[in-house]
């Protein structure tokens, strides 16, 4: 019996090894996994990425909707070959990013306003207007102010650049379930089973007792 099984296995495996790569090569689709992603501010430039928990990135050209906190559409963009998208923020507000990676995989990302540079105004203003103050200051001649402002921007950009890989690593780490999670889940399942069996046991014992009592009652009657 077992020999038959062992004999049959290699044949099945052979078929599997031929079939699976052929199908995989012919279908560039991603499989059902968790969707993961993150958005990071580099100065006023918001960069984000989207993909699946197994390391596949979002398909190039996936539409990205950018909404404000009231749900109004600000802009639309799309992902590149590596699942990365970017948006130049013009206002200092919460930016909500909405991606649909097909097959029920939707991803919502939020970039809070306080991660954007303070010199962006929260009101709807054109880019030109926000750029005006620095021009004014150049004219007024206070070079020290400009330098410190520019320096601040440079520092912000540099820090953001340095922190970006760390953020990516952290979000990947957050997505990864640990052994504790697995063991915890198993513990819950077995615990539930235990409770079920215990309740059943109690019921059976109760039934048995009831029966015995009835029999005793019958015996005394007769």
């Amino acid at each position, binding site marked *: *019996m077992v020999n038959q099984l062992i004999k*049959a*296995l290699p044949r099945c495996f052979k078929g599997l090894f031929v079939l*699976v790569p052929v199908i995989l090569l012919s279908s560039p689709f991603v499989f059902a996994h968790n969707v993961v992603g993150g958005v990071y501010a580099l100065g006023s430039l918001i960069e984000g990425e989207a993909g699946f928990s197994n390391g596949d990135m979002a398909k190039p050209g996936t539409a990205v909707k950018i909404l404000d906190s009231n749900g109004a559409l600000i802009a639309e963009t799309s992902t590149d070959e590596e699942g990365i998208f970017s948006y130049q923020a013009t206002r200092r507000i919460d930016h909500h990013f909405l991606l649909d990676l097909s097959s*029920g995989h*939707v991803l919502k990302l939020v970039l809070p306003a306080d991660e954007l540079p303070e010199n962006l105004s929260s009101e709807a203003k054109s880019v030109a207007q926000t750029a005006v103050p620095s021009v004014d200051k150049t004219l007024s001649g206070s070079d020290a102010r400009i330098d410190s402002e520019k320096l601040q921007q440079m520092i912000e950009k540099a820090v953001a650049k340095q922190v970006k890989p760390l953020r990516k690593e952290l979000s990947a780490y957050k997505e990864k379930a640990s052994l504790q999670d*697995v063991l915890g889940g198993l513990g819950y399942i077995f615990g539930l089973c235990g409770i079920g069996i215990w309740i059943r046991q109690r019921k059976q014992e109760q039934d048995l007792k009831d029966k015995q009592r009835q029999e005793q009652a019958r015996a005394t009657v007769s």
Partner: protein
Amino acid sequence: MHIVDGALSVPVLAGGAALAIAGVAVGLKKMDYDHLPQVGILSAAFFIASYIHLPIGFSSVHLILNGLIGLALGWAAFPALLVALLLQAVFFGFGGFLVLGVNTLNIALPAVLVYGLCRGGIVSSSPKVAATWGAVGGAGAVAITTVMVAASLALSGEAFLLAAKATLIAHIPVMIVEGFVTGAAVLLIRKVKPEFLNLSEEWEGG
């Protein structure tokens, strides 16, 4: 397989939840409580299976095992899968709480269907026939689940054919692996522990 929160419309969520509750109720009623440990073991197997990604080429797949669970448990697959899906949502962040009903229905109903369709096959006296039916059950359950996922999305506004095609093609490797694993599992369990598939009453042994 796991639809995430936010992808489905409210009526679909509510309908899925209602049907899932009905399924769980039937499952709890029909469940043979002598087989409670077995329900737990298979629930645990499903819980773990989605976590383990098997690398194939440059991508990876994970087993779903709803075919095997259906063949072994029948209607009891509903409560078993509900518990496993709930814990997956809590611990791994797979799916979500609002879509729990829809996800349970999409994964457990195919399991019950497979139980109805392939049950006769796996009790056959010929191991080859039984293994084939097991494989058909394993692959079939994934296929039905895929179609149901596509249908849930279609009811929420996504184009059905497009969604169905995309998910179906994406899951062909899963179906192959799943069919193979379920077939082999049925073959092995028949030899080693026939009572695990509740075969002892219907099957005289070979």
